């Protein structure tokens, strides 16, 4: 009863004790960094906590934001090869601490790797989403193109470093981020591989997961690199 939880949490820069409904899976990269830092601390190795060497950026807080968007089509592949379109939505207002954003990395998990189940090549197009309108009445549309990448045999994770998002957030702290994702299948519809294309699109619809890894640097905890700690 003497445990003043509120005061302790304030010290840790937390407003209150979180009470998540369920634990999210811990992404491999965060687990790897955590284990490396624990091992270094246990071994007494000095570390720069304001540099994430695994990602090659400065920062002292890593946050993995889940995608809260929705699919825009769940039909079979269209004639132009469009496999799926998804509106990706990330709530950036969760980043409450002061400081600068040093990295925003989007990860698209295209499903488990399988040696036997290589699908046809797909093209992944990522754009800034325009809309949706007031109360989400109109559907989001693709705006400024951020990335276009061909992926042979779509499996496993794909990473996109979103430098523009970093600049925009540091300029005027965006409350949220909406992205338009389109995946196009590049199968030849006249050579009997259409079945494979449909299979791949169906699999991607079921297994596609997106997340945004953001790294922030708090100047209070991380003085500029020119001022070396004595």
């Amino acid at each position, binding site marked *: 009863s003497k*445990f003043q*939880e509120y005061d302790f949490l304030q010290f*840790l820069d937390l407003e209150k*004790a*979180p*009470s*998540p*409904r369920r*634990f*999210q899976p*811990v*992404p491999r990269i*965060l*687990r790897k*960094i*955590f284990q490396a*830092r*624990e091992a270094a*601390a246990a071994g*007494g190795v000095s*570390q720069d*906590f304001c540099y994430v060497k695994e990602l090659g950026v400065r920062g*002292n*807080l*890593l*946050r*993995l*934001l*889940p995608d809260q968007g929705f699919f825009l089509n769940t039909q079979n592949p269209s004639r132009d090869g469009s496999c799926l379109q998804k509106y990706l939505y990330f*709530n950036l207002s*969760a980043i409450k601490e002061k400081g600068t954003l040093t990295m925003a990395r989007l990860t698209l998990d295209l499903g488990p790797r399988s040696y036997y189940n290589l699908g046809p090549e797909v093209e992944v197009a990522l754009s800034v989403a325009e809309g949706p309108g007031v109360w989400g009445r109109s559907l989001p549309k693709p705006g400024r193109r951020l990335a276009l990448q061909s992926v042979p045999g779509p499996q496993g994770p794909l990473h996109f470093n979103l430098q523009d998002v970093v600049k925009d957030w540091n300029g005027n702290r965006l409350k949220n981020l909406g992205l338009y994702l389109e995946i196009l299948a590049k199968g030849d519809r006249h050579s009997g591989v259409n079945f494979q294309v449909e299979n791949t699109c169906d699999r991607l619809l079921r297994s596609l997961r997106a997340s945004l890894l953001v790294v922030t640097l708090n100047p209070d*905890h991380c003085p500029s690199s020119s001022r070396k700690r004595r």
Partner: protein
Amino acid sequence: AAIPVPKGSCRNPCHRHQLFINFRDLGWHKWIIAPKGFMANYCHGDCPFSMTTYLNSSNYAFMQALMHAVDPKVPKAVCIPTKLSPISMLYQDNDETVILRHYEDMVVDECGCG
């Protein structure tokens, strides 16, 4: 490593003691993914002036002991951390966000008189 202590000079010299903090005891296991807890150390023990030559001690400890000798109302030198290490925490907030954060200078590695 054990520090050789002059016989009869001090029964309870300054050194670090271990205490395991289990997040479950605080109810924090509901949101902290890892670690489950951590082995923390705290400093405890006496710092009589004769000991400061044997223990890791600051110049401030000498001044504090000198002041205490002149005026006993001034507190003695105390057992303080001289080397600290960080803690990394992997936790989840209410927005289903997974967060990895480092807190510097959280665990006492070495003690001394100060």
